[in-house]
């Protein structure tokens, strides 16, 4: 069992209505690895993450987490699986009606039978890890953007999950805070041996933390490789993204006129 890869995705196909959002995505993430998922806007990376988290129904293919296919798990089995997963959402998604400490403690309250004091100590330990010691009695509204994200990380790791997911950890943060968060991700990898999946479009951050990088583009997997392999890739779309070159759109004169006059045919 322990030799199963942390994440194994085969032929993932996601479709909303008649539109294919993701197609033929095959990917394996080994245990203890930091996998960064990159891609421009509309590449399907957010949808991809929601699929991994089991938040959306998929159209075809399979997603195995820790050796178990989450598309066939029963409600109760998925409930057990969720205890092995931690997620830090883009905006933190802390519960606004609870203090930071209560937020961090919530998974413990729901999943384990411990006394209040033990849970408080565990929550403080995780807050220490993310450098937020002493902030447990504040409300989320009183925290800065970077602090909210770190509190969200503390909540995500409270159950010591085997899989940790980050959605755009650097979005909306200044470069220094963003770098601190990168260090935190690396610390979690080495200190706790977690398998970490990070969805981001920040190149600098990706190169710093990734063991491997996967590029998604227009709903397809473009390439998956180490940082060096990605840097040396001769794929034009990847190089455009790495060098921040705007996409040149092929201009079709007839199509252009049709768009302007608003005719379908």
């Amino acid at each position, binding site marked *: 069992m322990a030799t199963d890869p942390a994440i194994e995705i085969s032929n993932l196909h996601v479709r909303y209505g008649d539109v294919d959002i993701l197609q033929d995505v095959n990917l394996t993430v080994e245990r203890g690895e930091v996998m960064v998922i990159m891609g421009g806007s509309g590449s399907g990376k957010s949808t991809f993450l929601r699929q991994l988290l089991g938040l959306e129904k998929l159209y075809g293919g399979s997603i195995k987490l820790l050796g178990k296919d989450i598309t066939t798990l029963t409600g109760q089995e998925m409930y057990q699986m969720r205890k092995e997963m931690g*997620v830090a959402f883009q905006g933190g998604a802390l519960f606004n009606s609870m203090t930071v400490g209560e937020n961090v403690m919530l998974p413990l309250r*729901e999943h384990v039978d411990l006394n209040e004091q033990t849970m408080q100590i565990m929550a403080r330990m995780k807050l220490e890890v993310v450098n937020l010691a002493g902030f447990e009695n504040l409300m989320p509204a009183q925290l800065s953007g970077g602090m909210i994200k770190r509190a969200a990380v503390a909540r995500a790791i409270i159950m010591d999950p085997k899989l940790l997911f980050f959605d755009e950890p650097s979005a909306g943060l200044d470069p220094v805070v963003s770098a601190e968060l990168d260090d935190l991700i690396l610390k979690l990898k080495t200190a706790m041996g977690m398998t970490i999946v990070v969805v981001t479009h920040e190149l600098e951050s990706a190169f710093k933390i990734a063991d491997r990088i996967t590029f998604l583009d227009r709903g397809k997997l473009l390439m998956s490789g180490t940082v060096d392999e990605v840097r040396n890739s001769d794929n034009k779309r990847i190089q455009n993204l790495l060098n921040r070159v705007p996409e040149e759109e092929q201009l079709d004169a007839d199509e252009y006129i049709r768009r302007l006059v608003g005719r379908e045919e």
Partner: protein
Amino acid sequence: MLTFLEGLGRRTVRGIEELGYHAALFAESIYWLVWGKRIGQPVRNNHVVKEMVSVGINALPIITVLSFSIGIMLAIQGIHTLKTFGAQNQVVLGIALSVTREFAPLIVAILVAGRSGSAFAARIGTMKISQELDALKVMGINPVRYLLAPALLAMLVMVPTVTFFADLVGLLGGGLYSAAELGIGLDVYWERTLDVLDPEDLMQGLVKSVLFAVMISLISAANGFSVSGGAEGVGRATTRAVVMSIAAILVTDMLFTYFMNQ
């Protein structure tokens, strides 16, 4: 004409879909309330108590004012109307039946829909757009169990309880005015009220209030869970929750009353 029919058809389908969604939410809440504990995912008592305080206890002052006013209003109108026939003494019967069968359950349900239903829809909607619902799901905390089930149970207990309270206050309001106007003692009024009041009258009101409780919780939750489109969407869902709840309450009241009095 064709587009009108098409629109009508689409609306009907959407309506049926929504009704199905409400039914599914209800079934799921009952499942968590009954089975949750056995599979290690209980509906927390402290959540239920918190909801009960906010739905019921905190509403008592305003309920008191409203039902007292309604009682007096019924007495004024009743005496004024019955005077024409020289039967103003019959006002006791009028007040007793209207308060317990109609006014107390209605006023409580409308107030709870406006106070708690809207707040509930707004809370769930805000949680949806800030990804807090997703956060709950990925933590293995089912949002229906965590948010809706405690609110539903709290409403099921508190709406009838508060309705019973409103019955008493409404009767008292009507009694104080009638006693003064007709020159009878409050004890005589009370005795006559108990005399004319059948337990069935009281029960009819209370059973209705249970139905209203279910409708308010489901409609508010469904609108909250379906929010899309940011803060504006939350506002829209909140308004829709209140308007739909009140409409559902009144129509159900009419149907229920019709069938119960056949």
